[in-house]
């Protein structure tokens, strides 16, 4: 069907893009202005760049540590939950487990409660239960990776299930007859075909962990503190360092944008996987 008014579509998407991107642009504007300029009349067009906010952020060893923590925790968590979710979905999809639909539903139920409900139990688990001598999981990167599993694993199982179900069982059977072991079936047949879905899950779980604030703020003190919690340290009794906070926010955005742009193709393929018979 021929489009009647292409300019209408262009205008619509231009408007939507402007509404979506303007806050990010505004964040960048704030990050490249000295504090004193932030309280003068707002200027949409940038006339000069004040890079000191970025220099402050990048030369601050504490912030660099927070950044490293965020990267390690998000990446570790994303890979762990995607791997576990993939294997769980394979089992749920292919094996006749008694009550598997109930198991599937049960996994998602903990996403139905607000995360704040879990704060106290998780705090006690990390500080008191998972403790050997002086070592506890509290304020550790591994502890935060495991905490995020609580929320990301059900999500991974939920998003990966249609992907695995969409791969015909006959492929498993053909590979089985061709002499492949169950592990080989997973690595040689299922994994390559599930890649778009796995990429989507990896990215979305990574973004969740990267952006998460509440759990990180409560369950970490210093060692495993993440970039999002680091932001709050610039709100002090003597004032708020808006410029530095904006610079941190822009820096926080960059990895997410890079990762998204790299796998955008997979995300589109993953979200439509199985929708149309190939």
């Amino acid at each position, binding site marked *: 069907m021929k489009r009647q008014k292409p300019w209408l579509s262009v205008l619509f998407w231009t408007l939507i893009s402007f509404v979506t991107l303007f806050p990010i642009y505004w964040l960048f504007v704030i990050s490249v202005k000295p504090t004193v300029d932030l309280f003068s009349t707002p200027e949409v067009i940038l006339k000069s760049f004040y890079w000191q906010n970025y220099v402050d952020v990048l030369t601050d060893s504490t912030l660099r540590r927070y950044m490293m923590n965020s990267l390690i925790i998000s990446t570790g968590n994303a890979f762990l939950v995607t791997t576990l979710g993939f294997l769980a979905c394979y089992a749920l999809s292919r094996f006749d487990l008694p009550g598997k639909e109930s198991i599937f539903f049960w996994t998602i139920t903990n996403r139905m409660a607000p995360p704040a409900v879990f704060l106290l139990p998780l705090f006690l688990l990390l500080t008191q239960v998972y403790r050997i001598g002086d070592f506890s999981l509290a304020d550790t990167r591994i502890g935060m990776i495991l905490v995020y599993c609580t929320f990301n694993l059900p999500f991974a199982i939920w998003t990966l299930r249609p992907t695995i179900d969409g791969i*015909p069982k*006959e*492929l498993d*059977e*053909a*590979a*089985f*007859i*061709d*002499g*492949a072991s169950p592990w*080989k079936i997973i690595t*040689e*047949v299922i994994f*390559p*075909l599930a890649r778009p879905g796995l990429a989507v899950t990896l990215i979305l779980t990574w973004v969740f962990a990267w952006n998460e604030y509440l759990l990180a703020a409560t369950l970490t003190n210093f060692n495993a503190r993440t970039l999002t919690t680091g932001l709050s340290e610039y709100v002090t009794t003597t004032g708020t360092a808006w410029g530095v906070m904006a610079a941190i926010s822009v820096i926080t955005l960059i990895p997410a944008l890079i990762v998204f742009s790299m796998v955008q193709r997979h995300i589109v393929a993953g979200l439509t996987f199985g929708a149309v018979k*190939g």
Partner: protein
Amino acid sequence: MANVTIDNVVKRYGAAEIMHGVNVDIDDGEFVVLVGPSGCGKSTLLRMIAGLEEISSGQIRIGGRVVNDVPPKERDIAMVFQSYALYPHKTVAENMGFPLKMAKRPQAEIDSKVGKAAQILDLSHLLKRYPKQLSGGQRQRVAMGRAIVRDPQVFLFDEPLSNLDAKLRVTMRVEIKELHQRLKTTIIYVTHDQIEAMTMADKIVVMRDGRVEQIGAPLDLYDRPQNVFVAGFIGSPAMNFIHGRIQSQGAALQFVAESGLVLPVPPGSAEEGRAVIYGIRPEDIEIGPGGIPVRVAVIEPMGAETQVFAKVGNDMIDAIVRQRIAARPGDELPFRIDVSKVHLFDRATEKRI
């Protein structure tokens, strides 16, 4: 190559028994077709031979070895699936070489065997393509190629032509038959299409509701069906069945249908008064002088043949003749029945008399 013995095989899902003691002997190098309507258990039986379904009781032997508990890869079989089950992310060459790769064969041997199979199946120019870049017939040939490279003792085909259009199905039928003549490997082939069964098989196993109804050569089944089900299933168009009784007319016997229609029967074929089902194939009816007058309901000219449907009482009789018919619906035509081709079945047991 190997013989396959299916010995009193039973399949149960929980309390439900869906296969009730099936026995089939398949000789070395034989092309056996399992045929029957949907849900008759033919695919389940094939999957049990492949090792994809457990056997509840009974035995399956391949080459004399009981394989009940042997995993598929050790049964020395290869299977071609209805959906071809090609790995979409692998090229044609990788698909065909996959079983050898799993068997950890050296790459040179894989390449050589894939090359030979590709030559047999005319796939040499497509080895670097992906399945989505192939036509239905080419995909089917790749699936066969993947089976051939293993040089198995038995080939299993699960409705391999169902997804192809009618014209391609005929071509592939010929190709599979040629392949069998060339490789001489035992083939067990599942289909619901009796024409495929008739044209390809050395031996047909007709199944219904988890039971074997009859086993025999295609023409044996066509000429001497053992019951009404087989008689109706084998042959296209299907055999005409008319319910009635045998009555005497002087010294001779005749069949009198419930509608009152009188038809000839072979002498001594059944005792007087017996309730029977009278079976006559459409192609064993001619139109000519001396025939039984019937009123034409529908005429279907197909070029080489003409199919005539005639209504007699409550019965519809279908004849297929080589001549062109000028009659119109409502006209009377004389149906001449070849008495030697009449099949009589007992009304109660539906078994051949």
